């Protein structure tokens, strides 16, 4: 109350807010647990990021541990420079492959699906294509390991077709990690990813197709000159979102798929943070690497959003 009177230089604003808090007390009461949740589980960890600049030991706690400045970052970039290069390269390359092959796939799938006029067939294809999305990462990796083992289904088929004379050890060969990771990702998300584009296609004004038809455009030309431009804003937004996470590779799938033989191509930032920070319990070091990653991600989102604003007048915020 005292603060309110002190701020009397702008009484209307504070009084309004007070009135709003009283009038909408039930709504504020409803949203309170949510705000508390975000404060505890999202903002306290941000506060905890300071241990990247400290020599954290659990006994002393976050507050009591001594400051060491940029020591942990130096340890990472100077002493462990071999790993720095490796995990950054692997993180980016997996994403680059996924953008090149995985990004266009659902768009093409949606465009082709849109040309299917038989609605029962179309619905069946859709239902089947969503299925892999519901399979857990553990099961997905379990199936990959089984099918691509030395004695697995894939080697059996390739050998019986005479393509291979000698089975390939897909899971222990560093060269096969990225194709398997990205390929299985496409398999899992092709159908699910196409939902957004199919929705965008269904929002295109039918009159545009009629006009194109009168101008003598066939179905192929309609797809290129009407459908594709119609979903372009969606494609651009999805592309920006995708590029914004180029320094981000999910932990679970890599963690389950990789092994020391494939670290060379498979170890990414998140798995490195896990091994160093949690398994070897070098909390400060792990946090420093994680913070470095978060800052780059944040910068990427801001930059890509600015680009999007300029290009399309559509942005995420």
């Amino acid at each position, binding site marked *: 109350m005292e603060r309110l009177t002190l701020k009397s230089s702008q009484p209307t604003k504070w009084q309004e807010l007070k009135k709003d808090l009283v009038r*909408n007390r039930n709504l504020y009461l*409803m949203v309170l647990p949510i705000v508390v949740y975000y404060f505890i589980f*999202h*903002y306290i960890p*941000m506060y905890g990021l300071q241990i990247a600049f400290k020599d954290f030991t659990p006994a002393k706690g976050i507050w009591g541990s001594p400051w060491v400045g940029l020591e942990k970052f130096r340890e990472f970039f100077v002493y462990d420079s071999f790993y720095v290069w490796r995990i950054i390269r692997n993180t980016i390359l997996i994403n680059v492959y996924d953008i090149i092959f995985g990004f266009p796939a659902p768009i093409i799938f949606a465009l082709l699906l849109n040309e299917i006029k038989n609605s029962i067939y179309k619905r069946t294809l859709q239902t089947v294509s969503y299925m892999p999305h519901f399979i857990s990462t553990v099961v997905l990796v379990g199936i990959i390991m089984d099918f691509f083992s030395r004695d697995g289904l894939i080697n059996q088929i390739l050998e019986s077709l005479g393509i291979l004379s000698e089975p390939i050890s897909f899971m222990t060969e560093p060269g096969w990690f990225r194709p398997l990771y990205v390929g299985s990702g496409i398999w899992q998300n092709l159908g699910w990813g196409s939902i957004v584009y199919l929705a965008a296609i269904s929002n295109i004004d039918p009159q545009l197709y009629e006009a194109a038809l009168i101008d003598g455009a066939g*179905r192929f030309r309609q797809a290129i000159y009407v459908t594709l431009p119609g979903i372009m804003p969606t494609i651009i937004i999805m592309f920006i979102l995708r590029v914004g996470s180029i320094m981000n590779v999910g932990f679970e799938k890599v963690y389950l798929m990789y092994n020391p033989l494939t670290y060379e191509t498979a170890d990414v930032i998140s798995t490195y943070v896990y091994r160093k920070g949690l398994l070897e319990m070098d909390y400060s070091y792990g946090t420093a690497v994680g913070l470095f990653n978060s800052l780059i991600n944040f910068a990427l989102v801001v930059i890509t959003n600015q680009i999007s604003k300029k290009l399309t007048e559509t942005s995420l915020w």
Partner: protein
Amino acid sequence: MKIRKSPGEIIFDTFNYIFLGLLCFTMLYPMLYVVFASFSNPIKLMAYRGPLLRPLDFSVEAYKLLLSYPMIWIGYRNTIIYVVLGTAINILLTTMGGYVLSRKNLKLKNPIMFFIAFTMYFSGGMIPTYLLVQSLGMIDTIWAMIIPGAISTTNLIIMRTGFHSVPDSLEESARIDGAGDWTILFRIMIPLAMPMIAVMILFYAVGHWNAFFNAIIYLRSRDLYPLQLVLREILIMNSTENMTTGISDASDRFAITELIKYAAIVVATVPILCIYPFLQKYFVKGVMIGAIKE
């Protein structure tokens, strides 16, 4: 308007129907193979090479061994607890949050929205979060599986957009009749937003069913393991000895081990694969709203 197809279109259509059919078959087949293999005779399956089109010499041997393994039941029980309790908390918080943030005339709405949305772009990361959960005493308790992920920001935004689409007039007339905010939420908003809530239930429940990250980081005791961690032991770490100790012959044991893996995949995945087609028409809408958020 019926228009004769040109030869080019006929060729394209034929190609397109066949191509998409084959593509979707490759999505379905791995799961079919796993189902067929799990019902096969272990010794015959080991000798067989190439794709299966039906179970080889039908047998339920693998299921018998798998289901007599106590960890599968413990995992199943825990996963069901995490799914039910976790989803209930998710839905309660997401609905309340989505409702409040969809209201107009709320002075603090934008600051709260920024406070929430900011966490989508920047986070403390794995280790500070782990240390927090540890200091809250949640390590190795069921709460570690439920509370840290109590709200998904994406879902909260989807939910908010869903409430936006409820006409204001309904709320106004309820208010004239003397209804308060809680009554409006539970009597008017939630029933109207039920399709949206069904989508949220599906998304959250599938998330809990498949969750693995929190379990591997926060849980220690095997009594608390969800199904996915038990599956990981069976599928990826190959630990099936507990199930096959009764089999003396080494090659028999090896053969049945492979089959147990297939059976484990079926047991853990089929429940979800049976449910999602029925909710399809809802989740398509949900994904759409999530992607094209204002």
